[in-house]
């Protein structure tokens, strides 16, 4: 293959300094490798969490409360007046969403949207001498199944059992363990309104998120309405969208229309996403630091070559090479080091990521897992390569400019 002349000269220079070139390539490779491994691990965790949140929870929940208090009639009629209202007593209302059927009908009219209703309430579950509180969700399994991936987390029993077994209940695995109960066991459920009901465990769920597994239970909507003393009421309308990214926009539209607080999954998890942003900043900062060190390695070798080859540069210029030809030689060296470093870095990154994927851990807490979550994405490889190439070009550009500005007569005069 006939290489362009600048590439030929650049290649020879690098091959002639194998050891120095190799060290520079290794520097870039380590930067690229660490970036790939770190990105796979961090984004692996983030996307696992995101996926779990998106799968387990509805994309939008319309709650039975308001984001802002109702405006008083005086405030509505005299918007320009300076008003101070004292002694306001909140209106005593039955808990739940008023007119939820109208809202549900409206939502059913929107394309691709799945809707379910739930009544959520607190209950005490007693098994033998152990009692634990839990948040019980009253659901209609067939509807709920369309909104969240209900059955994916089921490790025993079936949601359909709620329909077939009188007073059936499905509990999180953590809750069952804490109660010391298992499938088929009968528990006593006591609601905050004082209703007592004997329930039977007909299913167990495990989401991997400890807070859910330890505190959630499911019963039929009708049964929870009885337990809570809220007949014909729901506390939440759950919505699933074809595109979860639209949740934020639709939630604010629904809130404006129906006034009830509509919370998107992004809003519900805003705190965690903030942590992810910080995590990403830390990751990119670390990798940037590594790449800067690698870029210094490239800068160093190219500066050394230019220093050693200043005579050759002068002779090439006197032979008729343009300034841009000289610049190209050294920028190409940077590109070659960056590219080879990136390719080797891909292997390093793949190896490190595989090693991380094989690591066994025992994490218990909000997230429960026995292995590190890894996201295998070619984008990480591409990004790392682009990053390293950009760093290499910048590192080469600075000495290359200097080389191109060499005045041949000064060098030749100095040597002669």
């Amino acid at each position, binding site marked *: 293959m*006939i290489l362009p*002349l600048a590439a*030929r*000269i650049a290649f*020879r*220079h690098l*091959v*002639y300094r194998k050891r120095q070139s190799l060290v520079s390539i290794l520097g870039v490779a380590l930067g690229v490798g660490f970036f790939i491994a770190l990105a796979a691990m961090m984004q692996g965790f983030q996307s696992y969490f995101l996926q779990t949140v998106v799968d387990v929870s509805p994309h939008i929940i319309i709650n039975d409360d308001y984001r802002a208090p109702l405006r008083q009639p005086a405030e509505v009629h005299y918007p320009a007046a300076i008003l101070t209202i004292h002694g306001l007593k909140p209106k005593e209302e039955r808990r739940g969403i008023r007119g939820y059927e109208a809202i549900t009908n409206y939502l059913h009219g929107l394309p691709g949207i799945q809707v379910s209703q739930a009544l959520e309430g607190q209950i005490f579950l007693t098994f033998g001498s152990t009692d634990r509180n839990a948040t019980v969700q009253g659901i209609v399994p067939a509807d709920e199944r369309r909104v969240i991936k209900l059955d994916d987390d089921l490790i025993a029993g079936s949601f359909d059992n709620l329909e077939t077994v009188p007073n059936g209940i499905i509990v999180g695995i953590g809750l069952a363990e804490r109660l010391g109960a298992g499938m088929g066991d009968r528990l006593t459920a006591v609601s905050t309104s004082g209703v007592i009901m004997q329930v039977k465990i007909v299913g167990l769920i495990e989401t991997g998120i400890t807070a859910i597994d330890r505190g959630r239970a499911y019963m039929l909507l009708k049964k929870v309405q009885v337990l809570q003393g809220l007949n014909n009421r729901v506390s939440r309308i759950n919505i699933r969208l074809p595109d979860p990214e639209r949740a934020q926009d639709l939630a604010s539209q629904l809130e404006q229309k129906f006034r009830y607080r509509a919370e998107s999954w992004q809003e519900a998890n805003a705190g965690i996403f903030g942590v992810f942003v910080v995590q990403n900043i830390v990751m990119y900062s670390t990798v940037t630091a590594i790449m800067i060190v690698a870029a210094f390695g490239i800068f160093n070798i190219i500066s050394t070559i230019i220093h050693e080859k200043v*005579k*050759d540069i*002068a*002779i*090439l*210029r*006197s*032979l*008729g*090479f*343009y*300034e*841009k*030809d000289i610049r190209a030689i050294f920028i190409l060296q940077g590109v070659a080091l960056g590219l080879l470093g990136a390719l080797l870095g891909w292997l390093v990154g793949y190896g490190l990521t595989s090693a991380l994927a094989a690591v066994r851990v025992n994490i218990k807490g909000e997230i429960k897992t026995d292995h590190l979550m890894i996201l295998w994405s070619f984008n990480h490889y591409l990004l790392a390569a682009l990053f390293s190439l950009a760093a290499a070009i910048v590192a080469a550009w600075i000495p290359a400019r200097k080389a191109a500005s060499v005045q*041949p*007569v000064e060098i*030749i*005069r100095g*040597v*002669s």
Partner: protein
Amino acid sequence: MSTLLEARGLTRIIEGEVSTTLIEDISFSIASGEFVSVTGPSGGGKSSLLYLLGLIDRPTRGTVLIEGLDTGTLESDALAHLRLTTLGFVFQFHFLLEEFTALDNVMLPMRKLGVLSNQAMIERASELLAQFDLAPHIHKRPGQLSGGQRQRVAIARALANQPKLILADEPTGNLDTRNADSVFAAFRDIVNNFNASVMVVTHDPDLAARADRHLKIIDGHLA
């Protein structure tokens, strides 16, 4: 014979705390196919004149015309192109690229010009090297060649693009008598067979006498 190169009032002053005049008001011309030698005491301005004629330095005053073209008006890239196509340099030190073989070194200006095919470039470079008795050494690197061989490779490289003028700055300064003699024979050969002009700076009066015309520079002036 037509005028190939004309120097008009060439002056080169290096500015500094104390300005140094390297050459002053030098005018002369070189005809096509002419062999010119330049002698003079060290520091007299011989090399400085050659750098100005070779367009790798710019005069403080005056100008160089090559085939009637005033080079004083040209930008850096245009000057580089003239060096590539019209001029050939041979220095006291061979200035070959260490990483390249003799063949590759001779091919460098051809590759830069990019007119010939790769095969044609190899053939021409091989022929040039053979003409200077370097056929067995074409794949050797400069480090594997003797001083005389290296200098002959440098001459072959200067001829690569069939220049109209070869400028040689004390090309025999580091060579023994036998090698110096062969280099001068090569220059004579270039003038006779390649129809190019040669201008050689030398300290050796015997070698200088072998040229068609002899210039002497003392203290930056033509004597």
